[in-house]
C-alpha cells in the first residue's frame, strides 16, 4: 500500500482513501495484538493490578513474535505486509 507501486495517475481522493484504510488496518492490528497478548500473558486470577516481571517479559516477547508472524504471513501472501 502507501506510495510504492502506485500509478502516477492515482488521484488525490484515492490516496486519501488508501491512507485511511491503512490507518484502519493498523488500528485493527494493534487491537488484535493487544487482546491476543493479554489472553496469552495476563494471569487471570487478577491478584494484583500491577504487571509482574513474568507478565512484562511475556508481553515484550508476545509483541515481538506477533510482529514476526505478521511479516511472515505478509511474505506468504506475496505482498509486502501493508507497509509498516
Amino acid at each position, binding site marked *: 500500500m502507501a506510495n510504492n507501486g502506485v500509478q502516477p495517475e492515482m488521484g488525490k481522493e484515492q490516496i486519501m482513501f488508501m491512507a485511511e484504510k491503512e490507518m484502519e488496518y493498523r488500528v485493527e492490528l494493534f487491537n*488484535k495484538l493487544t487482546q491476543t497478548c493479554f489472553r496469552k500473558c495476563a494471569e487471570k486470577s487478577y491478584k494484583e493490578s500491577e504487571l509482574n516481571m513474568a507478565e512484562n517479559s511475556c508481553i515484550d516477547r508476545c509483541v515481538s513474535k506477533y510482529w514476526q508472524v505478521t511479516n511472515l504471513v505478509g511474505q506468504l*501472501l506475496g505482498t509486502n505486509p501493508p507497509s509498516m
Partner: protein
Amino acid sequence: MDKNMLGDLDNLPEEDKMKMAAMIDQLQIRDSLRMYNSLVERCFTDCVDSFRRKTLDKQEETCVRRCAEKFLKHSMRVGLRFSELNQGAPTPD
C-alpha cells in the same frame, strides 16, 4: 465476492453504476485487510504458546506457514462454494 447480486440494480444510470463499482472495490480492499488481520491472529493463536524467547523458533515458523497456507486454500474453497450457492447451483454431497 461476486458482483452478480447487483443484477437488480442494472437499471441505474451509468454514473451510479460507476459509484457502485468504486464502492465494491473499496469494500474489497477493506475486506482483504481484515482477512489478513484475522489470519495473523488465528495462526498466531494456534501456533505460538511459549514466550521464553523473543523470536519464533523453527517449529513455530513452520506451523505458522502451514496454517496460513491452509487458511488461504480453505478461504478460496469457501469462496467457490459460496458463490455456487449464491447462484443456486447444486453442490456435491
